[in-house]
């Protein structure tokens, strides 16, 4: 057990705590905040099943974005789908035994990593090349893109250029489950990769990355279009009626 391993162990405990607590806090806040009026963007589904389908199309295919802008859609979708594959691939470090579908996905995870970086590159380029997007970009938008690209590139470097001892990496994370700190390989690229990932976990609940839970709570997307059939009333609005 090295000093560095301890630092990383506590860093990941901390990052995991911030990520989970922060997200739970936000989700509870969203769930508790009433939506007093029916505001689905119409035409909207008239049943709950229809809404589930609408949200699924948004989550899986980015339907609205597709209608809005094909360039953002292609780069954004390639990035997110790549990230999804990469995440699945990484589950092998956190599961023992590794599930068969996760074993199957391994090679696709590599393509996912490449796709992710390409998508991010396209999105970042737009922030410089399109005057409207340049105008709305703040420093944090660049930093988040930089963070994600660095995570992707450092990960790809470990796959293709400077390998690390992934069995020890796995042992490190498996150890964290039971409060045991196993030695992490002291490879600079790995340490950088993990540091950036921990950073991403920490900023997640405090940044625009909240768009992930936000989508599910967006009233214009998740409400059923049935205001004439069913009376919709928030608690605070009900109190107005009793006054």
């Amino acid at each position, binding site marked *: 057990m090295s000093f560095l391993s301890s630092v990383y162990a506590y860093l990941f405990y901390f990052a995991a705590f911030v990520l989970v607590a922060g997200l739970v806090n*936000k989700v509870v*806040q*969203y769930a508790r*905040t*009433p*939506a*007093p*009026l*029916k*505001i689905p*963007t*119409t*035409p*909207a*589904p*008239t049943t709950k099943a229809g809404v589930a389908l609408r949200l699924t199309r*948004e989550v899986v295919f980015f339907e*609205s*974005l597709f*209608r*809005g*802008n094909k360039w*953002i859609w292609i780069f*954004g979708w390639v990035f997110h789908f790549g990230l999804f594959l990469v995440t699945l691939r990484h589950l092998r470090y956190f599961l023992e035994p590794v599930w068969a579908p996760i074993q199957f996905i391994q090679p696709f995870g590599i393509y996912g990593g490449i796709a992710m970086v390409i998508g991010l590159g396209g*999105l970042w380029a*737009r922030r410089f090349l399109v*005057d*409207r*997007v340049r*105008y*709305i*970009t*703040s*420093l*944090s*938008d660049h*930093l988040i893109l930089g963070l994600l690209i660095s995570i992707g590139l450092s990960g790809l470097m470990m796959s293709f250029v400077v390998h690390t001892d992934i069995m020890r990496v796995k042992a490190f994370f498996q150890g964290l489950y039971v409060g045991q700190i196993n030695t992490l390989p002291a490879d600079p690229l790995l340490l950088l990769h993990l540091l950036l990932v921990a950073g991403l976990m920490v900023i997640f609940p*405090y*940044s*625009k990355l*909240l*768009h992930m839970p*936000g*989508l599910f*709570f*967006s*009233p*214009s*997307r998740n409400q059923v*279009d049935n*205001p*004439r059939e*069913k*009376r*919709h*009333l*928030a608690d*605070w*609005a009900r109190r*107005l009626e009793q006054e």
Partner: protein
Amino acid sequence: MAKAVFQVPELKQYAEIPALEPGVMAHSAPFKAKDEFQYALGFPGELTEDWQDKAIGKMGDLLGRYRSLRVYLDSCVKCGSCTDKCHYYLGTKDPKNMPVGRQDLMRKVYRRYFTLAGKFFPKLVGAEDFTEEVLSDWYSYFHQCSQCRRCSVFCPYGIDTAEISMAAREIMDHIGVGQKYCNEIIAKVYKIGNNLGLPGPALADTLEGLEEDVFDDTGVEVKYPLDQEGADILLVTPSADFFAEPHVDGLIGYGKVFHEAGVSWTLSSHASEAANFGMFIGSYENMRRVAMRIREAALKLKVKRIVFGECGHAWRVAYSFLNTLAGPWDFLDSRYPVPQHICEFTYGLMREGKLNLDKSRNDDMVLTYHDSCNVARASRMGDKPGGQFDIPRAIIRASVNNFYDMDEETIRDRTFCCGGGGGLLTDDLMEVRVKGAQPRLEALNNVMQEKGVTHMAAICAICKSQFSKVLPYYGMEMDQIVSVHQLVSNALILTGQHTDDDDEDEAADEAA
């Protein structure tokens, strides 16, 4: 062409996304409401000394009451999908009229006072104190949003700038910075019953005049009843329908349709306004107070059904909110939707074959149809999603021989606002109204050139007033905008109507 002290945008054959011209519309701001109208709505009369604290307090209050506001302020990733979707951006080129640019005016204040990142690293995330300059930007640019929801269609998270501009106006009202046009009108509704301040006797007079006109035209006694207790249907229609052109031709049409249906109906002097400007200023309390007048009228007149006339934002409040604001409607006939749109009513009759429509009576026109923004993206007609697009078109197609849609990208749920919605239909905002109409009129101009379209039909009082006013700026005629029920009215041959002579009369009238 009408006189303009600003440059009227050019209409091109292909829509262009303009390059940014920051700040060009910063000067555009509506007149402020006088204190008496502020008080009438329950707001302070002028900017209070501790306005900053009060505004932040109000923002916190709204964040706790509206999930939309909270989620929308958090979720934007600045992807850019909305940036070229707002008609005010396309017409003015001002980046603060890009939906995200407008939202960011509030988001930067939200971040500063309500998020960890904004409290500790304001520069990093673009957070800013709520200064007087920011407030001035708010007043300008949140009154350059017509709450048309076009941005929300294209946002991957459905972020609706309308929700944000409503909240901004609500916050500004609470620190004494209200808009004259909206707040005066709401005060008028409380005092008199409608936006235009038409008292009961004036309404009765107007309706009597309509009865005479229709009798002269058709030889049929079509009634336009007011405050008739025990009628089956309460018609709630925008007050502009009582006298403005082409609105009144629509009202004539509703009356003829009711006549042919053989139902008894009435207007109400107490609820003589379909529009609900409480929505424009984002005030649930005021919106509810205005809506309650309809409930009161329905109870007093003992009607069984409520039907709304042609009005866009009004139909949003009616369809989406009325049950919430003024329901439950258990005292009405449950066989009919509450409320019903006049187009749903007419469409039903049409399908039953109860309307004798002679399309050739509209042969002097080649029509297109403007989907009014709030009907298109914030409501429905009929029992299927998208009925709000299909039902008005079906009515038009049954009433005219010549109909062409505008470019697909500018109709249905991608329709452009007329440029005058959301509380902007006031002369002190003429520049933004004219410029905001550019995308819609560009599409109109294209079907005029390519298909020979002469008239555009709409089902919104604001659209009709706005187009009558701005069409001349673009070298078009103010009467190129017509009501959908005006087309029905023209085509409809009433039972017992003798037509030959009337046809000539009508032709003469229209030529005049």
